[in-house]
């Protein structure tokens, strides 16, 4: 599993990368009340804003961590945004994407480095 400075986690699953936000991020956001997901089939570039999360505090964006195509989104979050607070690292994944170049993942942190970053 890899981690971005934007508090996303990336997990390779077969030929797709599953993306979510970390538990630390979900705690910082507070109760999540709305999640807007991209359309399946959307072709994205790294750092595109592709997901909007609204919590009781504010709106924030999730950036595409890699170049590629969104192949599946987690519709469960649309009906139950609170899932992000309950199980950020598991059930509450945001989208699965087919990466153009998996080596883009190399620049991201492993778990130990991410833990250092958040202190």
């Amino acid at each position, binding site marked *: 599993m890899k981690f971005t400075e934007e508090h996303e986690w990336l997990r390779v699953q077969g030929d797709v990368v599953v993306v979510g936000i970390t538990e630390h991020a979900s705690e910082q956001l507070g109760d999540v009340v709305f999640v807007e997901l991209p359309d399946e089939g959307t072709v994205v570039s790294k750092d595109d804003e592709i997901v909007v999360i609204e919590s009781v505090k504010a*709106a924030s964006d999730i950036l595409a961590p890699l170049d590629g195509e969104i192949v599946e989104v987690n519709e469960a979050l649309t009906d139950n945004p609170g899932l992000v607070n309950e199980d950020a690292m598991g059930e509450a994944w945001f989208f699965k994407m087919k990466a153009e170049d998996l080596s883009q993942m190399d620049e991201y942190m492993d778990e130990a480095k991410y833990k250092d970053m958040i202190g």
Partner: protein
Amino acid sequence: MADLRRTGLFDLHLELGGKMVPFAGWEMPVQYPMGVMGEHQHTRAHAGLFDVSHMGQVILRPPKGGTVADAARALEALVPVDVIGLGEGRQRYAMFTNEDGGILDDLMVANRGDHLFLVVNAARVGHDVAMMRGRLGEGVTVELISDRALLALQGPEAQAALERIVPEVAEMRFMDVAVLPVSGGDVWVSRSGYTGEDGFEISVPEDEAEGFARALLAMEEVAPIGLGARDSLRLEAGLCLYGSDIDETTSPVEAGLTWAIRKARRKGGARAGGFPGATRILGELEDGPARKRVGLAPEGRAPMRAGTEIFDGDEKVGEVTSGAFGPTLGAPMSMGYVAAGSAATGTRLTGEVRGKRLPVEVVDLPFVPANFKR
């Protein structure tokens, strides 16, 4: 956080796990470990304890040899509200207006027999006190209370909790005020608040405040509540936040606060006019305002937050001034100002969120019905 003031309950907030943020020059808890959503729900179901010591507590005393009516008459020159008609032991909502009919602050005024007791917004304390000292006229003294904490206990179980410490509160009705003895001094209680729930605001001598708060928090019904839930509770209740929903550019009529302007101060009333901005405010009462504060219910789940532009067809007709997700409502909710022609309940408008025009409907306020003990 340098230069921020701390209330007498600061250490208690930290002990309770409060997340402290700057607010109106104070360092205040925005939430506790329960979280905004949980704190909101707890207040609607049980009782929530809020530290509102940052708000300004002010006493207005009449000139020597005068009565409370003299202080009330002086205050009426600054507010479009019937203060003289306010009975002893009662409280009323009011607002200071400016010459343009805008709102300088909103406040609570209580008649406590031989003086008036005011509670004003934290960010406006300095302004309000200076203005009153300058303009209330000869002999009325303006005393800013600096040695008392202010707590709010809100929710359907607030009475059950508070009466264990102050039994007399069981007899109070909505908007009653009383000075009640407890060990260590008097508490100043009003049956009111800003959540839409039954509840009390309690002014406690600073030395007693922490003990008083701890005694309440030890009760099963009571949990500490931060500013985050205070905001979602007041928005569900359709109540204005000064600086967001009302300010120097909004008149009380535009803001839908006309219920606070009683007959005596209206055209044909016993003391019609005589407050700053009377020409505009009385004119709008007759002819209607050009824009109105309305409730706005977004159709989807996306909250429309403050600053969201509102359109009727292609025409921009207004803007959201407060918007959030309503935990009790279970849906997003906003309020804001729209042109009078687009303000009728049921009017379908759109709000621009991240470049997309999303449907939103004008609805009656409050979003969640009030639960007062009348």
